[in-house]
């Protein structure tokens, strides 16, 4: 275990030892919590396994952890499974990249133009409140079975999340900073780059973090409806075969992937938003 004493080079002259001991305590507490959390999971799995062992539950419908982990291990060495996984992840990446970029840009533009916002807001609200996964079959109709329809389903989810967050964020410049920008006679461009955008970044990031998860959701749903490859397809085919433990193994993989994506976004956010001083 390493302790990041250099976490805050800026405060070199503030009492370093106190800071460090606080960090040590923090990490210690964190480890304590983490092991407690893991224990809860293990106990739950054990109970599930015992219940299956003593035939208290019907493994035909609910599977059993040992079988799930065995299936998981099998999947990890199975090139067919990885083919499905890569197909899902690539679509997730593109759905997120396209949806978040266009959504954020659209949000920033709408926040700047009052009349554009007034005209489009009712429609954006309606589209946003509609359960957009219902569009997935339509995308398959439009783009055919394959990568493009999956990406379209993901984009339709991510775009609006990014748009709403970017728009809300760029309205958060407070009076005081606005006065400063005006007093310094900043051009529209400077005002945007040095005031409006930095203020919006935390909100944009909150949108991106959600966007990653929703991109995965959109892709898997599209794959469950119709696909040639992908984990969503695997899920439906295992379900149809009553292979519940294998199904759980795919869900476990998806869970691990989305947790990983979410934590990386959090890490990136923390780095970029160092100036907020949140531990």
């Amino acid at each position, binding site marked *: 275990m390493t302790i990041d004493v250099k976490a805050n080079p800026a405060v070199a002259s503030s009492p370093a030892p106190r800071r460090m001991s606080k960090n040590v305590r923090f990490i210690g507490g964190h480890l304590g919590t983490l092991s407690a959390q893991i224990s809860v999971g293990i106990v739950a799995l054990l109970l599930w396994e015992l219940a299956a062992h003593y035939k208290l539950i019907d493994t035909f419908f609910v599977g059993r952890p040992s079988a799930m982990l065995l299936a998981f291990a099998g999947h990890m060495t199975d090139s067919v499974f990885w083919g499905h996984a890569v197909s899902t992840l690539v679509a997730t990446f593109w759905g997120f990249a396209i949806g978040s970029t266009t959504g954020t840009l659209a949000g920033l533009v709408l926040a700047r133009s009052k009349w554009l916002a007034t005209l489009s807001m009712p429609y954006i609200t309606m589209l946003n409140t509609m359960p957009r996964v219902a569009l997935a079959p339509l995308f398959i109709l439009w783009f055919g079975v394959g990568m493009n329809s999956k990406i379209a389903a993901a984009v339709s989810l991510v775009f609006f999340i990014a748009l709403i967050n970017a728009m809300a964020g760029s309205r958060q410049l407070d009076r005081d900073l606005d006065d400063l920008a005006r007093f310094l006679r900043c051009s529209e461009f400077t005002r945007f780059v040095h005031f409006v955008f930095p203020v919006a*970044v935390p909100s944009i990031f909150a949108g991106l973090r959600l966007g990653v998860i929703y991109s995965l959701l959109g892709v898997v749903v599209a794959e469950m409806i119709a696909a040639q490859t992908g984990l969503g397809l695997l899920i439906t085919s295992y379900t149809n075969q009553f292979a519940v433990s294998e199904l759980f193994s795919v869900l476990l993989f998806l869970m691990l992937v989305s947790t990983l994506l979410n934590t990386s976004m959090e890490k990136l956010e923390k780095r970029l938003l160092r100036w907020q001083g949140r531990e």
Partner: protein
Amino acid sequence: MREQAARAVEMSAARGAAGEAASLDIDVVDIDHYFRSQSDRPVHAVDDVSLQIPQGQFVALVGPSGCGKTTLLNMIAGLVEPSSGRIMVGGTPIKGSRPEFGYVFARDTLLPWRTVRQNVEFVLAMSGVDRRERAGIANDWLKRVGLQDFGDAYRYQLSQGMRQRVAIARTLATRPRLILMDEPFAALDAQTRLILQNEFIRLWEETGATVVFVTHDLTEAILMSDRVVLMTRRPGRIKIDKLIDLPRPRNLEADRFTPEFRLSYDQLSDALREELDRL
């Protein structure tokens, strides 16, 4: 970059062709100001104020809370347009702020996503200071306000007093010829306030800039300024306009025991109490 070149031209034009500074006499003529409010009738903030401030004078503006001091300052800064009346600077009507103005806002208005040094440099850049000179000037001013070790700190890592010192350093670093200050020392403890008052007075005596200084502290007003303008309760009118006859350079510790200070203080505090008692 075009923006910056334009600023540099603006600056030298303001200084006059021969390097001779153009007059910055301030002439506030018959100013009235109403703030619109959605619910009831407009708020009458400033009532028929006229005020001539010759170049180089240090004027303190005092009065009950909400009487329109900040509003008056914002109007001189070009941030608020008076409902009626006009403000002339050096004989020309003011529209928008000017590059030779500096403003220390009531709240620190540091950009939280920039370090202390970057904050100073940003204001320098906006004032048309050449990129190569900014770092040197910023370091020099951080040293002058005792923050040389905090150049890389972010806003959240600074105390109120330190933030205010950055705001002062950032403003004075551009060598403004008119300095507007809105209760710049109000958030400080007594010791730090005395240090900064002394420091500011010395820096100001070097520059010969005009100062309009809002404060709630009558002692501070009398000890630092050439003239104290006392406003009535809202809508703010000028109740007392008094020249302070203490020799320069001032001695903030010793001057408070002079008869001139005593007399001025009694007169102003009686008038202020009268305003506070009036309902």
